């Protein structure tokens, strides 16, 4: 038999439980727009019934319920979505950084346009045509100098802008590394708080939400693996190195001693290089070291080709003073390119070599030049349409493992090669024909020696280095036995710079490659955004706050609260009857 006070107890517990549930709904509504917040819900259970069952029960019809209580507050969270989300955020971080860098490069190159490098090259060579048309006209010569300066400036400015961009990216690498540390520190702090709360038996829902949000942010910077320990801490690894160890962190720093910021772990002496495989940090480094550098290398290669070919023709001609041997451009690449200071100085127009030393008209002997001769200017203008030249050299004692280069084969100019490195040829025996491997600047091309006969009946062995542009031809007298190992013999080595033929084509190819890379990066970045959006929705399905849902719950709780209050007043009435009206 229970007392009326027992009823009051149940009602009180109900009021308390409904109140808690209202508070939970209130908290959900309050945080409906809070980033990282997960919807919370109360676990509502019946309290222990009364009395405890014993063998013989007297005076009671059965067990009576004692009411309700909220035993736990949970957060709605799908950890698998978190795991997927972090992977996608990492990839997005990387592609976003690359895409942003490429978009900036596209703005720097400003092509296709009427003021880009392509237009400046065309203007420069057209100016040579005009000099060819009026070789002695100083106004036309002055115009040529201006277009030459513009071309050199455009090359220089482009490379300067790109170098500036590289420096900015380098700074960002440093800043991103310190952001990683900030987040790591925040995670470590939260780890500490969470483990204190949770070892006390409660659930640290809001702290966990904060930590998950920071883990999301961290994962867009670097690729992380996170492992939760039993006391509720999260240990974070970058590669194989621990970043967060419960409430302690290992510092990721940068080492700028090599000229660029390289991520290192600062907790060891000496610092160990950090392996960063993905995320914004990796994207920034890739953009700095590869994306931007490729463009700088491309411009340098193009500039040195223009400088070299213009200067070699210009030096062969003579100015209006009859002197030859002057270069038109100074410098060796896009960074250092400029117009010869002698030419830009006052009176320098006369030093432009439009003419050539030509055999004098008999009866005069020797060589002479004339101001109306524009043969050199024509030759200079033709560089615009000139295909990359093939350098050829005779070599004696060609042998396996031969290394070719400016120093080893006289007359072979390998300076067009971007890597400007020697080319090595290796001959290996094989049936039916030996194989030749050419290596240059890290690229290796294999070719099979093909044996043929030339019109004179000589045996000719050729090996073509394909994209490296190198070609070896060995001619041996008919009847000579060519053995598999290629015994040292005399031959010809030729080298054609790889890539497109004219300077314009070379540049157009660079622009096309930039476009392909940029549009790929943009679409990869957009795809990542789609994946992240999808996962955000998926996460919101579980963790997001629906106001309609909370309002519905709130009304339910309100009704339950009102009913429990009604029970109290009913019991109050009962007690009133019992106390005030029964004994009178």
């Amino acid at each position, binding site marked *: 038999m229970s007392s009326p006070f027992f009823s009051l107890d149940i009602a009180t517990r109900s009021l308390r439980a409904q109140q808690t549930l209202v508070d939970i709904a209130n908290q959900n509504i309050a945080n409906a727009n809070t980033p990282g917040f997960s919807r919370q819900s109360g676990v509502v259970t019946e309290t222990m019934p009364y009395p405890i069952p014993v063998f013989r029960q007297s005076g009671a019809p059965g067990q009576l319920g004692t009411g309700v209580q909220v035993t736990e507050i949970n957060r709605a969270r799908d950890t698998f979505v978190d795991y997927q989300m972090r992977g996608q955020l990492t990839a997005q971080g990387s592609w976003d950084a690359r895409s942003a860098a490429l978009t900036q490069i596209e703005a720097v190159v400003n092509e296709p346009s009427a003021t880009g490098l*392509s237009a400046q*090259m065309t203007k420069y060579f057209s100016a040579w045509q005009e000099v060819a048309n009026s070789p002695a006209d100083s106004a036309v010569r002055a115009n040529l100098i201006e277009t030459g300066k513009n071309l050199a400036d455009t090359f220089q400015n482009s490379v300067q802008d790109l170098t500036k961009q590289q420096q900015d990216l380098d700074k960002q690498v440093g800043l991103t590394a310190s952001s990683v540390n900030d987040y790591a520190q925040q995670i470590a702090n939260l780890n500490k708080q969470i483990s204190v709360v949770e070892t006390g038996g409660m659930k640290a829902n809001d702290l966990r939400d904060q930590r998950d949000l920071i883990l999301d942010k961290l994962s867009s910077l670097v690729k992380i693996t996170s492992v939760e320990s039993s006391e509720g801490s999260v240990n974070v690894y970058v590669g194989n190195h621990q970043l967060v160890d419960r409430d302690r962190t290992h510092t990721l720093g940068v080492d700028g001693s090599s000229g660029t910021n390289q991520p290192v772990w600062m907790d060891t002496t000496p610092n160990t290089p950090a392996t960063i495989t993905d995320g914004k940090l990796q994207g920034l480094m890739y953009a700095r070291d590869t994306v931007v550098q490729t463009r700088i290398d491309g411009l340098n290669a193009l500039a040195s080709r223009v400088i070299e070919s213009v200067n070699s023709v210009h030096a062969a001609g003579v100015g209006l003073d009859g002197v030859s041997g002057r270069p038109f451009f100074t410098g060796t690449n896009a960074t250092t390119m400029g117009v010869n200071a002698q030419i830009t100085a006052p009176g320098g127009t006369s030093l432009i070599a439009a003419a050539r030393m030509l055999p004098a008209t008999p009866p005069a002997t020797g060589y002479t030049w004339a*101001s109306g001769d524009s043969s050199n200017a024509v030759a200079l203008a033709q560089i615009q349409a000139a295909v990359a030249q093939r350098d050829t050299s005779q070599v004696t004692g060609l042998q396996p493992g031969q290394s070719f280069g400016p120093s080893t084969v006289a007359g072979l100019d390998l300076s067009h090669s971007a890597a400007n490195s020697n080319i090595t040829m290796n001959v290996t025996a094989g049936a039916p024909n030996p194989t030749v491997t050419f290596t240059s600047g890290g690229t290796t091309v294999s070719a099979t020696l093909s044996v043929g006969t030339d019109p004179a009946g000589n045996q000719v062995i050729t090996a073509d280095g394909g994209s490296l542009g190198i070609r070896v031809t060995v001619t041996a007298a008919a009847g000579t036995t060519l053995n598999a190992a290629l015994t040292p013999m005399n031959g010809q080595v030729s080298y054609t710079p790889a890539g497109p033929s004219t300077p314009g084509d070379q540049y157009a*190819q660079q622009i096309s490659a930039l476009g392909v890379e940029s549009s790929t990066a943009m679409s990869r970045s957009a795809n990542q955004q789609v994946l992240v959006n999808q996962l955000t929705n998926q996460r919101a399905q579980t963790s997001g706050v629906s106001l309609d849902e909370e*309002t519905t719950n709130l009304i339910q709780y309100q009704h339950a609260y009102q009913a429990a209050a009604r029970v109290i007043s009913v019991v109050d009435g009962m007690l009133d009857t019992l106390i005030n009206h029964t004994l009178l």
Partner: protein
Amino acid sequence: MTMRITQGMMANQSLRNIQANQARMQTLEDQITSGTQITKPSDDPIGAAQALSLQESLDQNTQFGRNIDQGTSWLNSSDAALSSVTDAIHRARELAVQAANGSLTPADRSAIQAEVTQLQHHVLDLSNSKYGQYFLFSGTRSDQPGYTQYNPSTTAGAYQGNSGQVLREISPAVVTNVNVDPTSTFDPVFQAMNQLQTGLTSGDSAAVSASLASFDTALDAVSLARAQVGARVNRLDALKQRQDGVSVNLSGLLSNVKDVDMAKAITSFTTAQTVYQASLKASAQMMQISLLDYLK
């Protein structure tokens, strides 16, 4: 399990879609206002490279056109000078025929002699014709006159220029010279006139008669030069016409690659605008509804 939809999801989704629609409109607006569909290489990587190459070819072609025009002017100036030389030869030959007649009074002869002297000066002037600042008949030594006196057989009167060729690149890798060889053209003319002048001075009618043959040789030489000039002008004219055609083709190709198809772009823009408006309207209406509207 039915999908739980939250207000946040709807708001985010609406915002993303509105932004995507705006981005699409912005791209199309950019294309329409700039008139080009390639503003940066990533818009169309292959197209961007093609546009650069085509623009380069077009500019080169335009430059070759200028070279041809300039070469043609040079040749036309040469022809005008040589035409006057031909007239002078004809007149001198007429005078030679008159002088060879033998029935001339000393006054007549001195009148003829004076006119021949005038013609000699005239031809000398013509041999020093200029195109702009360049002497046409000095080879590439075009800053100086080819002849300073009208007697090339003397050292002082000899041709002062050279045999250099005045070159113009008229189409890719095709270089032609636009000047005539001055000595083979002018030397016979001066010689014939000198012969006549000498004959008249000495009263040697045989020499005067002999000069007739020299005038024929001179006429042949000048005619040959004029024929060469004419042939070159024709060649340059033909080339110029071809290059105009090439320019039209290149411009067409460039336009195909680069220019926006306005009809298509504007239609797409209108469609994008409609979609944008619809997304705004739908979002606005969707976001206003809540259970709270119906609770008292």
